């Protein structure tokens, strides 16, 4: 089997067509993918069972692989087949893709690696180079060109959670607010398009998806006050040209603009779109979440209005960006209870539904054709709001709206019951498997400067503590029956879980924790079936795929990422420790 052919090292980027270059691309290709079948829209929607073509498997984002070679009877025989070190200079929350026996992995700082998915052999690595001194001094016509990498506000550590594959390209969104197309065969940069000005804080941590031939990305970095807002864009995948841009904040003159009170545009912050969306090809709608308003607390923000379209699910037409509907989960949210996360598309009794869960731990079921509320299941770990089971309307409990400088005892903490660690749905068990973090905090919200460049989340004095119902555990995998919302089982650990859940046709749930332990659970009853310790914290999105009839499970590990990844274990489980390096992808299979 040959998936590669040698080409000279240090290949030039001769097909560059940069629109606004921050970094001169330096793709260090070592080989190229020889046998590559272009990925079509039909393949994305219905991928072959052994492929993993979207960040959560399919556009419906189930996090489910139908592969069943590895099951509850043999999972205890899993062996490490190969491991590959990933870039360690930033944060890793990798969601790999697999196509044609090749694994494509995003890691920190824009690095993308292509590996033979069966052997782990390196095929190519794309690594953006920093701008040269000559380039910086050239004045190149833009103020951004004189900046060194990272010399802009609020970028983080180069997280790129997911990438997309379509046609013959791998698509990535960058920490410098650009999108890139990289030739999937060679690893060479095809084009790069600047989408927003990173000096204002704009950047990407979520990657793109492809929906009905349009490349869609959601921007983040909208916490600081500026004369513009967050948005989602659609692009031509051939050229990167922007087709449409939909703001995620209602401007003063827009419908819903009054939900921010009389705040001018510059003080309407937040609504970041920092988790990739889902796509229903029949409805021709993409579903994308938005984050909470900034600053977090109403009293600091200066309005107690609903603040559209923050903390909402948006249904957009991928052809033109038109908003078909929106559902705001927590109007006027005021404690950093984000609802931006993954949207899981499931048809329940013939009704096309969308499921999602935010930091509060409420499992929402919406009609994904209309946006109508169907059901909400509060899993019972929060003390902040009440949910009307008929309307889905949230109301704050007495005393739970923060006041400036006054301590508030809240469950969860700003870390949330759930965060970016995506849940998975199995059609075999009709269950949702949810990575839960058990925690509470005594928080005091403070003021910020209301001026351009100011704002942000607002300062919070925090004192985290264990959830009273946790028995000292931080981590829980919760299995909920769909659609009833009844608890099927719980599996708890001292360490918090730090990856998405993966479920398979073999009746298994794979998940990894902060304390280096990767586990396989029985999807029916939560029984622990297999464990292994890895180099450092499990972190990212595990996947399953097959090559030549053999099933593999891949688990990314790494550090950095969302803040609690360090703070909660350090404060509440201080006896645990993990190395602060060791980012890698680890692949397991049954013995040959």
């Amino acid at each position, binding site marked *: 089997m040959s998936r590669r052919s040698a080409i000279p090292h240090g290949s030039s980027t001769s097909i560059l067509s940069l629109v606004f270059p921050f970094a001169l691309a330096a793709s260090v290709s070592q080989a190229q993918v020889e046998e590559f079948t272009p990925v079509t829209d039909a393949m994305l929607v219905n991928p072959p069972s052994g492929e993993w073509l979207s960040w959560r498997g399919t556009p419906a984002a189930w996090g489910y692989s139908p592969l069943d070679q590895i099951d509850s009877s043999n999972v205890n025989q899993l062996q490490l087949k190969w491991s590959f070190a990933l870039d360690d200079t*930033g*944060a890793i929350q990798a969601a790999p893709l697999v196509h044609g026996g090749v694994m494509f992995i995003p890691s920190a700082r824009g690095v993308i690696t292509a590996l033979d998915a069966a052997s782990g052999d390196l095929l190519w690595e794309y690594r953006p180079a920093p701008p040269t001194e000559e380039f910086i001094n050239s004045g190149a016509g833009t103020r951004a060109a004189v900046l060194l990498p*990272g*010399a*802009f*506000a*609020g*970028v*983080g*550590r*180069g997280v790129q959670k997911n990438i997309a594959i379509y046609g013959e390209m791998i698509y990535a969104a960058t920490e410098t607010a650009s999108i890139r197309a990289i030739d999937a065969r060679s690893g060479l940069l095809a084009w790069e398009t600047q989408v927003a000005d990173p000096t204002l*804080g704009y950047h990407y941590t979520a990657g793109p998806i492809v929906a009905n031939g349009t490349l869609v990305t959601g921007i*983040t*970095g909208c*916490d*600081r006050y500026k004369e513009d807002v967050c948005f989602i864009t659609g692009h031509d995948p051939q050229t990167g040209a922007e087709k449409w841009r939909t703001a995620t904040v209602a401007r003063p003159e827009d419908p819903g603009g009054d939900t921010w009170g009389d705040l001018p545009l510059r003080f309407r912050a937040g609504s*970041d779109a920092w988790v990739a969306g889902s796509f229903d090809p029949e409805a021709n709608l993409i579903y994308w979440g938005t*984050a909470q308003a*900034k600053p977090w607390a109403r009293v600091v923000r200066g309005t107690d209005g609903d603040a559209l379209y923050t903390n909402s699910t948006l249904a957009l037409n991928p052809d033109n960006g038109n908003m078909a509907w929106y559902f705001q989960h927590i109007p006027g949210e005021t404690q950093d209870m984000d609802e931006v996360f993954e949207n899981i598309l499931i048809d329940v009794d013939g009704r096309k539904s969308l499921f999602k869960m935010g930091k509060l731990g409420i499992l929402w079921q919406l009609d994904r054709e209309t946006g109508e509320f169907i059901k909400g299941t509060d899993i019972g770990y929060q003390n902040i709001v009440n949910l009307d089971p008929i309307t889905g309307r949230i109301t704050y409990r007495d005393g739970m709206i923060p006041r400036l400088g006054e301590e508030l005892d809240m469950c969860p903490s700003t870390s949330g019951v759930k965060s970016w660690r995506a849940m998975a749905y199995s059609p075999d068990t009709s269950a949702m498997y949810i990575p839960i973090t058990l925690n509470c905090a005594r928080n005091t919200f*403070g*003021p*910020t*400067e209301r001026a351009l*460049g*100011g704002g*942000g*989340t*607002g*300062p*919070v*004095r925090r004192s985290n503590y264990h959830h009273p119902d946790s028995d000292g555990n931080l981590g829980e995998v919760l299995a909920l029956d769909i659609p009833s919302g009844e608890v099927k089982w719980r599996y708890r650990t001292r360490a918090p879980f730090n990856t998405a859940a993966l479920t398979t046709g073999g009746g298994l749930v794979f998940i990894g924790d902060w304390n280096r332990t990767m586990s396989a659970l029985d999807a029916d009853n939560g029984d622990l079936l297999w464990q292994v310790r890895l180099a450092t914290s499990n972190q990212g999105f595990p996947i399953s795929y097959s090559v030549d009839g053999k099933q593999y499970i891949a688990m990314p590990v790494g*550090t*950095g990422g*969302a*803040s609690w*990844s*360090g*703070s909660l274990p*350090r404060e509440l489980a201080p006896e645990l420790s993990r190395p*602060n*390096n060791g980012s890698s992808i680890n692949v397991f299979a049954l013995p040959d």
Partner: protein
Amino acid sequence: MTRILLSTFSLLLLSATQALSHAQEAPSIWDGIYSAEQASRGEAVYREACLSCHGQDLGGNSNSPGLVGMGFMFLWEGRSVGEFYEKIRSEMPTDRPGRLSDKDYVDVVSYILQKNGFPSGDSTMQPDVSRLDSVEIAPQ
């Protein structure tokens, strides 16, 4: 006359005692507890190790608190420079806490103090936690 001399002597003695007592009091953050050169070194360390999360203007982002202005004072007013130094030294950078030298950490602290308007002085701040613990972060 003798009484006057004694009273004068007593006053001088009292003044000297008060001055000595004042000298032994905890140093103020407004006394110039770091040097400008040190803050300049700290800026270089900040740009390498801290900027990508806390921003060029130290304003922070969704996952990293701001280190200047109202937000910084809300979080740190009334706490000691030693506590701030220990927090940074033990937890930062979050991907590899403790990877900098003590000198680098204390230089970064001096840079952050400078950006918050606390004045520099002639002396270099040392990574001496017990001494830094006696310096309170306080408005003037």
